[in-house]
């Protein structure tokens, strides 16, 4: 990797580009983890309201994002 070599210290890097890309990667991972957990909760019979409460968001927000699942 041309650029990845100096990415080892992403969290502490002073280069904004490195830090921002690290945050974007983390968001990507977070989105997938959220999808896994929401799906698991739905399979176990949780309501959208219960899921929203645990995620700390509104029921509308969680339903809009994961509703068709």
């Amino acid at each position, binding site marked *: 990797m041309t650029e990845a070599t100096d*990415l080892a*210290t992403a969290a502490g890097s002073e280069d904004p580009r490195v830090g921002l890309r690290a945050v974007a990667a*983390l968001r*990507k*991972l977070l989105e997938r983890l959220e999808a*896994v957990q929401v799906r698991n909760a739905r399979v176990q019979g949780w309501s959208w309201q219960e899921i929203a409460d645990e995620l700390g968001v509104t029921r509308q927000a969680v339903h809009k994002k994961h509703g068709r699942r």
Partner: protein
Amino acid sequence: MFERFTKAARGIVDEAVRQAEQAADVEVRPAHMLAAIVAMPESRAATMLHAHGLTVQEVAAAIAEAERRGGLSDEEVELLNGMGIDVAQVVDRVESVHGAGALQKRWGRPKSPRFSQAAKAVLHRSLREAIDLRNNYIGTEHLLLALAAEPGLAREILFEHGVTYQVLRAANARAS
């Protein structure tokens, strides 16, 4: 923009959509476009890739590996590693509870996959590459240049086979 695409370039875009559908993916990503290029061996871009030893199987394997860890590219894994997050460990733990491939599964996919932001960026970039080379059409070679230029999994797969943006630009300069 699409009216400037050559027939072969349109074929690549259509094939990328088909690749994404086949993978039950909700998005068409640049990696699907790369997979489409290697799958259509008669194009100019595919000829360049095959000259560098890139095969359909290798691209498919790289995409599957990235999908397993939630679509993260090698670079993104390294970035997260730099933050103290061991992606392999996260994937292992999620899969141990929720089953193999848990992070790649998507529910309720739409009728046809959308182009991801990154894939749209590649399409726009291909137009810029064509203008840059003073071509009045957008061909498979411009799509490939764009894939090699935009950060992400497709660029990484190309890089690992020695196919960099500079290498492709040099090849295009020789050809024209």
